[in-house]
């Protein structure tokens, strides 16, 4: 099989320029979708019959939680690709993901807690989803800590890539075990951080929001990716072109 096209496609200068060109194509639609979804979620959607207007936190909590997992998955897939094919660009993708994912995991925890207070009456409940989210934050912190502790950039890339892959194998196991544990100890009276019954006018802003945040992630990733590629690239010829001396 001829891999030449693949290598050309994945070559740092090509990816760099592609990232530069594609960024606005993700950034502006992301902004438009998120603004539309905000209007839909805050104004058009009717209050929930049980949770009243409080349910509207879902328009922030769900995208943040979605980002936390999707970004981790992206990071782990990129890390695996980078390890297997020794692709520098894939390492750059993985490295770009971590801070984005960690920050949204943090947001998911805060919004979950803010949602929990009116629903449960406490700021923190050992709800399985919040607990998993907390562990995910620890996984991100471990990844970033490991990366930061290794001086040699290539070794930092490859070591943290192994951790990302190990982590993604563990994420479903952790989630399962936490759910299992919770089902043993959960007092039945406490309401779960559940999805309210969403009618159509409540649902579409949520879907737009999820799509908007996904595009937003890609846009931010593309910007970060360019920086990470520059850091890893030593061939002067094309760098001079793009950074302009």
């Amino acid at each position, binding site marked *: 099989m001829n891999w030449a096209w693949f290598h050309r496609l994945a070559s740092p200068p090509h990816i760099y320029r592609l990232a530069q060109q594609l960024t606005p194509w993700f950034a502006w639609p992301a902004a438009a979708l998120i603004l539309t979804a905000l209007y839909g979620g805050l104004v058009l959607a009717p209050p929930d019959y049980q949770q009243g207007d409080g349910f509207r936190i879902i328009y922030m909590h769900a995208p943040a939680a979605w980002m936390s997992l999707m970004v981790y998955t992206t990071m782990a897939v990129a890390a695996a690709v980078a390890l297997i094919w*020794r692709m520098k660009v894939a390492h750059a993708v993985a490295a770009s993901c971590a801070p984005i994912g960690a920050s949204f995991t943090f947001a998911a925890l805060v919004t979950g807690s803010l949602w929990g207070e009116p629903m449960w009456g406490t700021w923190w409940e050992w709800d399985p989803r919040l607990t998993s989210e907390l562990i995910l934050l620890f996984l991100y912190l471990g990844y970033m800590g490991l990366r930061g502790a290794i*001086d*040699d*950039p*290539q070794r930092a890339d490859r070591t943290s890539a192994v951790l990302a892959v190990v982590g993604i194998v563990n994420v479903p196991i952790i989630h399962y075990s936490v759910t299992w544990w919770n089902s043993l100890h959960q007092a039945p009276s406490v309401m779960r951080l559940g999805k309210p019954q969403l009618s159509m006018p409540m649902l579409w802003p949520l879907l737009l929001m999820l799509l908007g945040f996904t595009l937003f992630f890609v846009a931010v990733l593309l910007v970060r990716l360019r920086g990470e590629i520059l850091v890893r690239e*030593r061939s002067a010829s094309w760098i001079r072109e793009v950074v302009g001396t």
Partner: protein
Amino acid sequence: MPREGLEVENLHLWRGERHVLRGIGFALPRGGCLHVAGPNGSGKTSLLRTVCGLLYPESGRLLWDGRDVHQDLPAFHSTLIYIGHEAPLKADLSARENLRYWVGMRRRIGRGTLEATLQRVGAAAWSERPARTLSAGQRRRIALAALSLLWVPLWLLDEPTTNLDTEGQQLVGTLIEEHIARGGLVLAATHHELPLRRQVQRLELMHG
């Protein structure tokens, strides 16, 4: 047409920001010895570690008997022994135990062979002492014993004569010469001269 032995083509290696190896190339046929020379920090150790597959080069090729070694590293590894600055010895094990564990992982060795080799490198007298109590030169001699016990074709030696007395250095020379004579390959990195009776190929590395 595949050639026998080791071929290195246009090797480039980066360590972080440093461009350590800049287009290194050489061919080492069966029965050949290459003396890698150069000042400290010129990349001698990096070259040896790249050749044995511990470091992955940025570009360039490494061929063993005409095949790219990175396609089957374990197979390539079973044809070589690499000895770094320090002999990999456990302080709490005796010289003999160290040798048995080190070599035994790769080759079943009989007691007689082990004793004869210890005798030959002049280690018989202190082979029961824990490695902790051995001098640097004695530790080197254990490494020499491993070298002759393993019986693999490709020797990668980093500063093989360091810490050895005159007699020990002669032993290194003799071992290398015997190895070449039976068709082995030796890649020795040292800024000293190799204690050999004849001239060998030389690769001079410059400051990186």
